[in-house]
Each structure stands twice: as structure tokens, then as C-alpha cells.
């Protein structure tokens, strides 16, 4: 490659989706640079050549020149037509998912990406994918708009509540790529990152096997896993340190001050309500920013989380 504007782009790790984009990016930059140099040169040249000599300089009357003006309307028009066509075809390619794509469900919510695989495996903010195979990420959102952006693959799409959207790519090297959230979504928008981890196909299969088939372990262990997976720790710490929300450490049995002035002792029912419908009782000094987990966590799962919280003394 070694093109003039290479330094501007991140490494291309998914040529199938990135090549056309990169080519066009370079093309526009180069054309623009040439035109810009032309214009700038003309400006500077005229400024010196026709510098005012005396107060009563006479200037010729040149009102217009149709040939010139038409030329510099038609040439840009042609250039933009090329750019449009190129951009359009590249974009069609971004929309057209190959048939054999491997599908992964990704849900954005404040401020995490929850990832679900076909065999029931779940991860948070980590997307494991096989190398050399097209992957289709099906996006959805639980609360507000988010946007799924992988610079290395040149793909991006908004996650819209109430709808499914998607992106696809095909990673060609084992390694990691960063995922950003690029639609403003509140306090920790800039921390809503994820990692795409590309495995050799065989390694990916083993990874899936190991993590598939739902949770295992004691209720407390399952609860702990859920707290990690569901992103509770974005806001709640488990070690007593401060955050956007009250820490889980020492929570159970504690006397809690609510923002309406009342107080209560934290028990199972309160915890359950706080998880399902956090807006019902808001802790004093905090804002009601926690998403409701109604319909997202099952009763068993909530019980497990509560069991886990109880152990954090």
C-alpha cells in the first residue's frame, strides 16, 4: 500500500468490509489535496502578482466567463458522481451479509455490550469470533440509542431500542480489536467499550464448548457470574469503593436512606424490587439511572444474585 494518507487509518483487519472504504478514503483525500493545492496556489500567486501598487490602480472589467464557469461546475460534478458510485457500492457490500455468516446477538445497554451466542454462551464486553469466517452481529438496545463501531473493520451501526440492526465483518488475523460506542448515551458513554477477540476456528469451537450451555456452579457462583455478565459492576462495586451506585459490599441488612426521606432495612424483597424496578425506591444521594431488569433476569437468576450479594459482607 504505502499511500499518502495511510497514516490516517487504523490497521485494516477485515479486508472484505474495509478495502472499498479505504480505497475511496484515499481517493477523496488525493483529489481534495490536488484541488486544495491548486486553489491555495492561485490565491497566493494572485495576492503577490496583483498586489496593489497605487491607490488609483485601474482594474479591468471582467464580469464572467461562461466556458470557465461551466467547466468548473461540470468537473466537480463528474468527480462527485464517481465518489457517489464508489461509496454506494462499498456500502451495498457492507449491507449484504454473506450467507454463511456466523450470527452473534449483541445487546447494548447503559453502558455495556451483552453478547449471546447460539449455544447459550454469554459474555459481557467481549465478543469471541472465529478467524476467516464472516460474522454477523445482530444489534439491539435495551434503553437508549447506542452505536457499535469497530474501527479496524470500518463497520458501524446504531443499536436502536425496539428494532434489530446488524453489521458484518470477516476478521483475517487472530488478535483483538476494540469496539466503541459512538452514539452518546450518558455518563459512561466513553467507557462503553468492548473487545473483539479473534480465534483460530478450532480454538473458537473449543471456547464455545467450554462456555456454552448455560451457567453452572453453586447459586452464589452463578450469582457472581451474573453480576459480571449483566454489567452491574459498571455502577456497583463489590469491594466497597464508591461508584455511580451504592456498593454491594455490606448492603444486605443495612439501613438504607431513600430520597423521599424514608428509610428501610435491606432485605430480599427490597433487593428484588430494586433489581426489577429500580425507580420504585431510589437511594438517597443517587440518581435513578439504573435500567430495570424486568424481563431480562429470571426469578432464579435474581435469587442467585441476591444470594451472592448476601455473601459480600
Amino acid at each position, binding site marked *: 500500500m504505502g499511500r499518502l494518507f495511510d497514516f490516517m487509518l487504523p490497521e485494516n483487519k477485515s479486508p472484505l468490509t474495509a478495502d472499498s472504504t479505504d480505497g475511496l478514503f484515499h481517493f477523496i483525500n488525493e483529489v481534495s489535496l490536488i484541488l486544495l493545492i491548486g486553489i491555495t496556489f492561485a490565491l497566493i500567486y494572485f495576492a503577490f502578482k496583483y498586489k496593489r501598487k497605487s491607490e488609483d490602480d485601474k482594474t479591468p472589467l471582467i464580469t464572467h466567463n461562461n466556458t470557465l464557469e461551466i467547466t468548473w461546475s461540470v468537473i466537480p460534478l463528474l468527480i462527485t458522481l464517481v465518489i457517489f458510485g464508489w461509496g*454506494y457500492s462499498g456500502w451495498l457490500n457492507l449491507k449484504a451479509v454473506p450467507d454463511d455468516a456466523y450470527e452473534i446477538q449483541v445487546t447494548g445497554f447503559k453502558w455495556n455490550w451483552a453478547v449471546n451466542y447460539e449455544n447459550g454462551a454469554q459474555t459481557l464486553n467481549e465478543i469471541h469470533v472465529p478467524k476467516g469466517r464472516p460474522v454477523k452481529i445482530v444489534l439491539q438496545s435495551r434503553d437508549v440509542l447506542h452505536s457499535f463501531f469497530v474501527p479496524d473493520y470500518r463497520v458501524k451501526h446504531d443499536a436502536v*431500542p425496539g428494532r434489530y440492526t446488524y453489521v458484518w465483518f470477516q476478521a483475517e488475523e487472530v488478535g483483538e480489536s476494540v469496539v466503541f460506542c459512538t452514539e452518546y448515551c450518558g455518563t459512561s458513554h466513553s467507557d462503553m467499550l468492548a473487545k473483539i477477540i479473534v480465534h483460530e476456528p478450532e480454538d473458537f469451537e473449543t471456547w464455545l464448548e467450554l462456555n456454552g450451555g448455560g451457567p453452572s456452579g453453586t447459586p452464589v457462583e452463578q450469582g457472581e457470574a451474573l453480576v459480571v455478565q449483566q454489567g452491574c459492576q459498571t455502577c456497583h462495586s463489590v469491594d466497597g469503593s464508591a461508584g455511580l451506585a451504592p456498593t454491594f459490599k455490606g448492603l444486605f441488612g443495612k439501613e438504607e436512606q431513600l430520597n423521599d426521606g424514608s428509610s428501610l432495612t435491606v432485605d430480599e424483597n427490597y433487593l428484588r424490587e430494586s433489581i426489577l424496578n429500580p425507580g420504585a425506591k431510589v437511594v438517597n444521594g443517587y440518581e435513578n439511572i439504573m435500567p430495570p431488569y424486568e424481563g431480562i433476569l429470571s426469578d432464579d437468576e435474581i435469587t442467585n444474585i441476591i444470594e451472592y450479594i448476601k455473601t459480600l459482607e
Partner: protein
Amino acid sequence: MAAAQSKNMTTLQVKRFKPSENPTNTYLTDEKGVWAWMTTVDHKKIGLMYLVAVAFFFALAGFLAIALRTELWTPAKTFIEADTYNQLFTLHGAMMVFFVLVPSIPAALGNFVLPMQLGAKDVAFPRLNLASFYIYVIGAVFTFISLANNGFDTGWTFYTPYSSDTNSLGVIWVTLGVFILGFSSILTGTNFITTIHKLRAPGITWDKLPLNIWALYATSVIQVLATPVLAITILLLSMENILDIGIFDPAKGGDPVLYQHFFWFYSHPAVYIMIVPGFGIISEVITTFSKKHIFGYWAIALSSLAIAFIGFLVWGHHMFTSGQSAVATTVFSFLTFLVGIPTGIKILNWVATLYKGSIEMKTPMLYVFIFLFLFTIGGFTGIMLGALSVDIHLHDTYYVVAHFHYVMMGGTLMALLAGLHYWWPKMTGKMYNETLGKISAVLIFIGFNMTFLPQFVMGAQGMPRRYYNYIDQFQPFHQTSTIGSYILGAAFLIILYYLVRSLFGGEKASANPWNSRGLEWQATSPPDFHNFDHTPVVINGPYDYHKPMEEFQLGLAVEHNGHGHGEHHEVKTDQTEKA
């Protein structure tokens, strides 16, 4: 006008009026006192009041920008919390757009020069003009009330559902504020359109209209057509907040993408509300300082209207990744490029105007050169963003941030500075310090590129916008950018310094220090309360630099100063010049 003119032709004489170099009675000395200023219906004073307000908000929003940039010095927290940062960029963007750029050229400079360039005594509806200023002030008050009620952190775009389910109180206040502000803009537009149609001095036919007027005309058309849609959108948004009516909120069955359509239906044309008046200034300044007829008058005049029109059909280019339909995306991308053509015609015609001119690099001209360079970069990167596949990668990254600063700051603001320096002698009767003017222009150029060029690179590398924390690899770019912004801040302080100083100790300006052929320069500096002490008669185009100055100093009759009610003035019959 023709009819009215011919009716009394027999008694009218056209005479040469040379503007007095030592006016005794000007609009600044006419009425004094705070109350007189606050209740004035004089377009010039209202223009100045707008100018002060705009400068105030610019300084405030610029100060916020400095705070933003300082926070971004390190990848994690530098000195403010994430929530504060989010409010800062929202406030910075909203203020710069709604309180600075939209009113800056039309309502501040435009108000001042538009009637003068038309040879009129005032705009068509002077009281409405004052009302629109106060509406603007009320809009500002609402925004400050919002700040006292939790503020707002939605980004200047107020996207739902984020804006309708967080922090409601602050958002409600600010959306109502923007709603009110919209009417200020609408009234200005209405006023200008009517004035341009109905109040032109004898002889100003459509082909003798200064290009600045054409630009303001196109702008007003956009203001009148687009702003009401913003008003209703923002009203719906407030109702979404207050009543939860659910048109946009997906939780209630609404469609958030519809909100984006409504918002951008205004806000894309709005970017042309911001830039097109700038184009007008460029045409005036570039001809004045190259003492040459504009190249391609009609192309420049009509391309403003073309931009205004096409500008209404491209709003969806902000929504390529939003989940709008593929058909819409394709159409929007295609139409986006078409805006580049009329804009390009303008740029190239301005360059061609310089050819064989008599170019003098005074400060306003320097800003025009800076404008041409920076805006072209901004425009080209706009084309980059219009390209479908590339925008998928660049959307909502710092590349977009850099693009719009190049067009808004490198474009509009540079044009504004050009116009401010250009008309400063007319407005205040004082000359600013030319040396300091040039020094600060150069500083701005350096500071600006240092601030925003690195943003192109990091944006293309993947740095998302509205990010409080970022990954380490972007730090060098952010730091360069931050240093650049400090240079910018210093440059603006210099400008503030020498402009304020010129008011008190500046050299007195002559009526026409630049030897311009523009009609506004045929009044005294500063002008009389009624602009001209005669009714100007126009027989030459505003760019006829090949003709002697005398021909531009024609007028009818003398009027007395002050408020012209009742029977005044006699028609002078001496010193006839053939019209």
C-alpha cells in the same frame, strides 16, 4: 418602485452627495442612555446589541471549549467529572450553534448593513426587529434556567430517547428555550425578505443587488422554511418529556429515527443558515480589496439560492448509520454531493475575481484568504462524509468534529471576522489597529489548524466524539489540539483588546476608508440616524470598480435629521446630474 418614481419625475433632481467626513449627528449620538438603547427600533442599534450578545455567548461557549480541551489533556479524568464534561460539550455546541452562529451574521452584521445596502432607512418592521432581539434574550434566559435545573447533557442534537428519559427538567427548559429562540430567527428572516422586496432605493434592480443581500435573502428563505419545523420538533420533544406522548419514544411505541428526521430537516438547512451569509460577506470584502468587479455575479447570486434549495433535501446524511431505510440513505447520499457544486462555483469565482485585481492585504482580506483555505478543507471533508461507505467509518468520530469546526469556525467565523473588521469603521466611526489585526489573524490561523487538523487524523483512526475518556493511543493528538485551542483563545483576546481600545482611542474613520463602491459606504461613518441624509439613487452595480466614485454618490433630496414624521424636506433642484 418604478411607478412611484415616474409619478413625480418632473419635480425630482438627482444630485451628487459626498458623505460628510465630520458628521455632527450620528445614530450613536442621536439618542443616549440605556433606556433609549433598549427601546430603540433603529436597525443599526439593534444590530449592535445583537453583536454584543453574540460576542458574549461566543466568549462563553469558547471558554467552555477551552475547558473541554483541557479535560482531554489526559486519557482519564484531568479535572472535571464525566457528567460535567457531557454537559459542557452539549452547552458548548448548543450555544455556538443557536446563540452564536445562527444569529451572528444575519442578525448582527446583517441588521446593520442590510437596510443601508438597500438605501432604506430601516427594515420593513422595525418593532418586530426589536422584538426578535428580546425573544433571543428570553431564549437565553430559559437556557440559563435550565442550567440551574440540573442542566442538560444530551448533545446539541437532543436525540431521543436519551433526551426524553434522563434529567428531564433541564432538558425541558432548554428545549423550550430553543423553541422560543427559533421565533427570533423566523422574525428576522421574515423582516429581511420583506425589506428586500419592498424597500429598495430607486434604481436597485435585482441585478444591482449586492451579493451580500442575495446571500441574506437565501438565508432568510431557509430560516422561514426550516425553523418552524425545528420549533414543532422541539415542542414535540418537550411534550415527550412533560407528557410522555410517545411519538418518538420507542418504549411507548414511537420511533426515535423519526425524531432524527425532524431534527435534521431543520439542522441541515441550518448549517446553510450559518454559512451562506458568510458567503455574502466574502463577496463584498474580496471585491473591495481587489478593487475589481466580482467574477460571475449571477452565478454567485443564484448559487446561494441553489444551495438553499438543495440543502433541504440532504438532511439524511446525518443518519447513515441510524437505521433509516436503504432507499433513503442512497438518495440522501446522492443529493449531498450536489450541494458541493454551487459551493464550488462560488469558491472558484472568488479566486477568479482576484485575477488582475489590485489586491490590498488589509485584515478583512486576510480573513477572506483564511476563509477560502479553511472552508475548502471543511467542504472537501464534507464530501468525504457524504460518501456512504466512508461515512459508516467516520460517523460520530472526531473526523466529523473536525469537519464542522472547519466549516463553522474556519468558514462562518472567519467570514464574520472579515465582516466585523470591514464594517467596523462604519459601525463605530473608528479604525482598529491594523498591525494587531494581522497578527491575531495569523495566530488564529495557526491555532485553528493546530486544534483541528489532528482531529481529522484521530477521527479517521477511530476516536469517537463526545468521549470523556479515551484510549491512550490518541493522547498526542489530543494534546496538540489542546495547545492549539489555547493559542486560539489568546488570539481572540488580542482581538477583543484592540477592538475595545479602538472605541476609545482609535483613529477616526473616514466615510469610505476602503474606497468601496458599496452603497453603505456612501453614508457618513458612523451613519446618520436615517442612514443617508438623502434618498440614494443607484444607477451602477455595487461592484463597478471601473467607474469613477462620483457616480456612486448620487441621491435625491435632502432630508432633515431625526425622526421623519410629517412634512419635511424640499426637493433640491440645483446641481443636476443626469441619471
